[in-house]
């Protein structure tokens, strides 16, 4: 991944932010009108969220962010209002995959070390979050290479448009000059334990 650094302020939420809090079912009739749906994002969790969020901000949450429904509208509208990355202690499986499919990084780290309003700098390449307000540095786990590749392309649809298929094996030149198929190292679980540190 190219060296990518993101900067913005943290908007902090708690544990177990469900997709029903992000995009409530009562707005299901707006799911084909994403601009309208986005006006209500997270309003049941934090009524000030939409008025506070600025382009480039980070959504910082506790454990199990995005639990519940498979509705991909949840990461779609979080992205639409300007959030550039989600940081959480842990994320629910479907939401995690949906967010990456929308080109939205979800970084698993010890978010106790981030307060609402803190300025953060995130280096996606090194896997380091620097809390510019407190000085704390946090590291986040790596994703499987396929997910990194999807994120790098800006999401699953652009990825598939480019590659036409999933690519999990990489062609690398062998010493003999012939191409051999090398299995990607995929053993690093997306659920890798928190690696928070000061």
């Amino acid at each position, binding site marked *: 991944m190219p060296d990518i650094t993101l900067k913005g302020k943290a908007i902090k939420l708690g544990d177990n932010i469900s997709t029903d809090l992000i995009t409530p079912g009562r707005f299901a*009739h707006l799911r084909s009108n994403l601009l309208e749906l986005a006006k209500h994002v997270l309003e049941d969790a934090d009524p000030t969220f939409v008025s506070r969020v600025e382009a480039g901000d980070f959504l910082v949450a506790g454990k199990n962010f995005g639990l519940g429904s498979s509705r991909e509208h949840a990461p779609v509208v979080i992205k639409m209002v300007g959030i550039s990355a989600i940081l959480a202690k842990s994320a629910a499986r479907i939401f995690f995959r949906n967010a990456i499919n929308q080109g939205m990084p979800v970084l698993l780290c010890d978010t106790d070390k981030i307060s609402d309003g803190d300025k953060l700098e995130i280096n996606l390449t090194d896997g380091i979050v620097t809390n510019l307000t407190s000085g704390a540095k946090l590291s986040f786990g790596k994703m499987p290479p396929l997910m990194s590749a999807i994120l790098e392309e800006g999401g699953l649809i652009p990825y598939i448009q480019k590659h036409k298929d999933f690519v999990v094996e990489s062609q690398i030149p062998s010493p003999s000059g012939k191409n051999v198929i090398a299995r990607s190292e995929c*053993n690093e679980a997306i659920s890798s334990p928190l690696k928070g540190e000061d």
Partner: protein
Amino acid sequence: MGKTLAEKILTAKSKTDAKAGDIVIANVDLTFAQDTTGPLTVRQFKESGFRKIAEPQNVVIFLDHAAPSPARQLSNDHILLRRFAKETGCYIYEVGDGVCHQLIAERFAKPGDIIVGADSHTVTAGALGAFATGMGSSDVAVALALGKTWFRVPETFFINLKGMFPKGVYAKDLILYLIGQMGADGATYKALEFGGEALSHIAMSQRLTIANMAVEAGAKVGLFPGDGVTQGFLTAQGRSDSYRSLYPDADAHYERVISLNIAELEPMVSFPHTVDNVFPVSKAEGIKIQQVFIGTCTNGRLEDLAIAASILQGKRRFPDTRLLVAPASRQVLTQAIDNGYIRAMVEAGAIILPPGCAACLGLHQGVLGDGEVCLSTANRNFKGRMGNPEAMIYLASPATAAASAIRGEIADPREIM
């Protein structure tokens, strides 16, 4: 080393030696979307430049979440999905046919299948031994086009069940208890695999309830073996050809083994606003309720309605407590009519809703008022789930729900049965 059920299915479908932690590309046997996730799926499918579904005979659209539609926007979403089904040649189930997961159990799922759906409760089909998991619209759009998707092969927690259910205690109590013990993220990214000596006594309707809620512990799949119970169910559905026996290897590696004696369970209730906030019914007894909802992909099956009807027979709902019942499918509804369950419930004061998701997700048919409390047999009680963030939702079995409807407050079904 031997393989878990998840590893076995993913090995067969990816044609690799799939082990926990691997990333595999696997062929998909059934891909589906429903009416609240389908429109985005269709748009992403088209945006990707895809025109044709790889295998339209393996693709289904379900109109079940807004059924019938309460708003013009949702009606227009239905038009979009009907048109897509016509254009691509995939199946579509109409408003009133039932909840996607119930129809998949009745008509499609079989042991060893891979099923992906744009709905988190796709895990329900794990009851039939299918590796079935929920995904978002992008993943499902790509699965439609390519007929395959990628998976990280999950590690497995083995749930070793023994004993028999005591009177008044059901699969819902079992899975609520487990989720309470594990936590709402206790099995994130993992497969739950159910086994043990109790399994031969756990009917398909109960297995479907258990598998359905695997996702509420964060799990990717909730798998049962393909066994005699599976064969009996498929035969009764006229699908005996779909049966094959499917068991994990005896020396499979499990990340964790959790043993549970069902005989020691009691009726359980999940308190607002997270599913893992679970306590024995005694802690909830006396909580006043304005609405009871019996139905959904968790507990809207014939056996669930039979239990509710047997408790409600000859009795009346509490005057201040509404009682909503939604059969999970048209087949369930017709059988419930034939068996007299519908009459018993209507005479007890129930409102029968059309087969579908009904009140579960807050977009119609039983939206709660400010400060109201609902006891539901659904799978989720998140804040705002039933259409109002100022309402409270408790989850329990159909027996607890029916008993509570009579009392107007949460009640222990064992006192009424």
